[in-house]
């Protein structure tokens, strides 16, 4: 099938190199920009080779954007989102695939439909809930007249409130609830042969044991893949944190702060510092991808059937 002629080899390599350059050149240019002085970066001729100001620019970016605290915040959010997503999607897919209850397909479709609603689309209602997670319950109580009754008998005016603005919970929870992971796990669980489930039953293993001792070890590579994707996704969140975090000193994330490094119209155009900041912010997702890639490639090689 695959022909290997010298000409074809040259053409395929040319395409490959062109693609690689297309991806690599902007990254290289931002790296070079991060190593220049303000004067150099603003000079009309483009620099292609790095200068000697990298360390200075990095420290300038770090202190100006107060990355110390923000890195911590971003880490907390990204790791919590990864853990939350992996756990929730594994459990919900476990329920949908291995248990036979009446509303199973209904729940599956409800989850599936949310796939089509990314956070950006449902951002207004999500904000309303984040502002007071108990608002829907309050509304129900008010509507049914129960709060009125309680007020009559105990004299207490019922007002439920759980505010998640300016908190880690608010940053994390709305990102945890999406369907991608559930769908991924479902597809994997469906490939587990029925006989394996039955063998576990015969061995006396209940659902929990089966989940922890058979399913989870078998889905290691899935977990790695999902965790990688979700770490990058959570790390790169911009709109949502921007919306609910007003206490920027304590709760803002690195991606939000990156915005601050971008020079305004009246300020000095120190793009070298902005690019240095970009390099810093890019580093953790890059490391995660590199580390985890080794992991799931290993998983793919030792095909376990």
């Amino acid at each position: 099938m695959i022909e290997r002629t010298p000409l074809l080899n040259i053409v395929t390599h040319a395409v490959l190199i062109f693609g690689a350059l297309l991806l690599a050149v902007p990254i290289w240019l931002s790296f070079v920009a991060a190593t220049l002085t303000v004067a150099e970066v603003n000079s009309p001729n483009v620099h292609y080779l790095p200068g000697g100001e990298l360390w200075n620019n990095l420290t300038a970016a770090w202190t100006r954007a107060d990355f110390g605290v923000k890195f911590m915040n971003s880490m907390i959010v990204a790791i919590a989102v990864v853990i939350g997503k992996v756990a929730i999607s594994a459990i919900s897919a476990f329920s949908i695939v291995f248990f036979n209850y009446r509303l199973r397909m209904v729940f599956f479709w409800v989850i599936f439909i949310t796939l089509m609603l990314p956070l950006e689309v449902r951002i207004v209602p999500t904000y309303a809930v984040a502002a007071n997670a108990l608002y829907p319950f309050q509304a129900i109580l008010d509507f049914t007249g129960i709060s009125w009754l309680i007020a009559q008998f105990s004299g207490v005016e019922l007002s439920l409130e759980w505010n998640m603005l300016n908190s880690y919970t608010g940053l994390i929870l709305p990102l945890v609830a999406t369907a991608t992971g559930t769908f991924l796990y479902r597809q994997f669980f469906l490939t587990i042969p029925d006989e394996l489930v039955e063998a576990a039953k015969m061995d006396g293993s209940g659902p929990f044991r089966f989940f922890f001792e058979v399913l989870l070890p078998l889905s290691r590579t899935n977990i790695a893949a999902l965790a990688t994707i979700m770490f990058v996704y959570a790390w790169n969140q911009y709109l949502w944190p921007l919306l609910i975090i007003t206490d920027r000193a304590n709760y803002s994330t690195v991606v939000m702060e990156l915005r601050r490094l971008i020079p305004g119209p009246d300020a000095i155009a120190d793009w070298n510092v902005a690019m240095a900041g970009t390099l810093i912010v890019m580093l953790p997702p890059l490391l995660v991808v590199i580390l985890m890639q080794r992991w799931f490639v290993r998983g793919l090689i030792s095909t376990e059937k």
Partner: protein
Amino acid sequence: MADIDIRKVEKFYGKNQVVHGVDLNIQDGEFIVILGPSGCGKSTLLRMIAGLEEISNGEISIENTVVNQLEPRERGCAMVFQNYALYPHMTVAQNIGYALKVGGMRKAERMQKVEATAKSLGLDQLLDRKPAQLSGGQRQRVAMGRAIVREPKVFLFDEPLSNLDAKLRVQMRLEIRRLHRTLKATSVFVTHDQVEAMSLADRLVVMNAGRIEQVGTPEEVYHAPASIYVGGFIGSPAMNFLPCGVSDCGTFAVIDNTSFRLPVDPEIGRTIAGQSVIVGLRPEDLKIAPEANDPNLLTVAFDFSEEQGSGRLMHGRLAGRDFVLHSAGRHHPAPGAPCSLAIGAESVHLFDPTTEKRITVAGAKTGQTGTLPAAFQKTSDVTVSGAIQ
């Protein structure tokens, strides 16, 4: 006493009934083989015993305890699956020991048992391997080990040998038989392979379309098939069936549209004198008579033959139907030449054309016994040795 009592068990999938009122009593220590074509409900019946499938109607009890509502783990059964169903992420030792681990056995004790079991199956060198690193035969052994190590009251096998190649299948068959002799646990073995069934079974259960056709020792089932279905299913090549009319005196049957006569046991013949019947003739029960063209003997001309090594299968036509004969030895009739067949009354099986059941005399002993053809002989008294692939 791990006897299993199956009473009027039925199974529905929705409105579709796949097991129809099965009654079966399995004695303690017995090796029962359930034999039937694919899709006849064998696995479903086995899985209802195991507790993997709900029992729609009827009752199953093990050791006099009704198990309908019990979880699989509470029934004391171990099962060997067709595709082995080993845990891919566990080593051989962990696979074998998993049930004990779930059962809460201490690690030291568990390892001891696992090692002993592995040793008895020749797996002691492979304890640290993963299933992916094993051959089909070795995986099969691990699956067996996983069942044995629990010392269950009942062993259930669902076509465990059907994924092995022919040679390994024979070897594992012997081994299962040997194992049963040492463990003496009640065993239920499901297969669609009649050779496997005959050689393993203490008693054979022949199933067809969700019903039991016959229960009996392999000899009984072979020599006195209870129905046309069983007669045709057991034995290879299949039994020849010929529509006949029994003479008024009840001593012979005349094949329809011919003048050929077949002898009939007069005791049975008397009760069905003058009626029409279906006669079953086993290809290996027919002998070619020395004198050709005796007008009273059944005469057939064979068109072609298949060499079998131990003899030859001769194919011809009789009364408008295909007819097969197994000619043993080395001297066979030439193709096209008419041959007369010598047939004794004991090899003429009579079936009722409407009920398709065997015609017997009330109160007579059920079926003759004799020896089975070599291919079906019981694999007792065998010692298995040699390396595992």
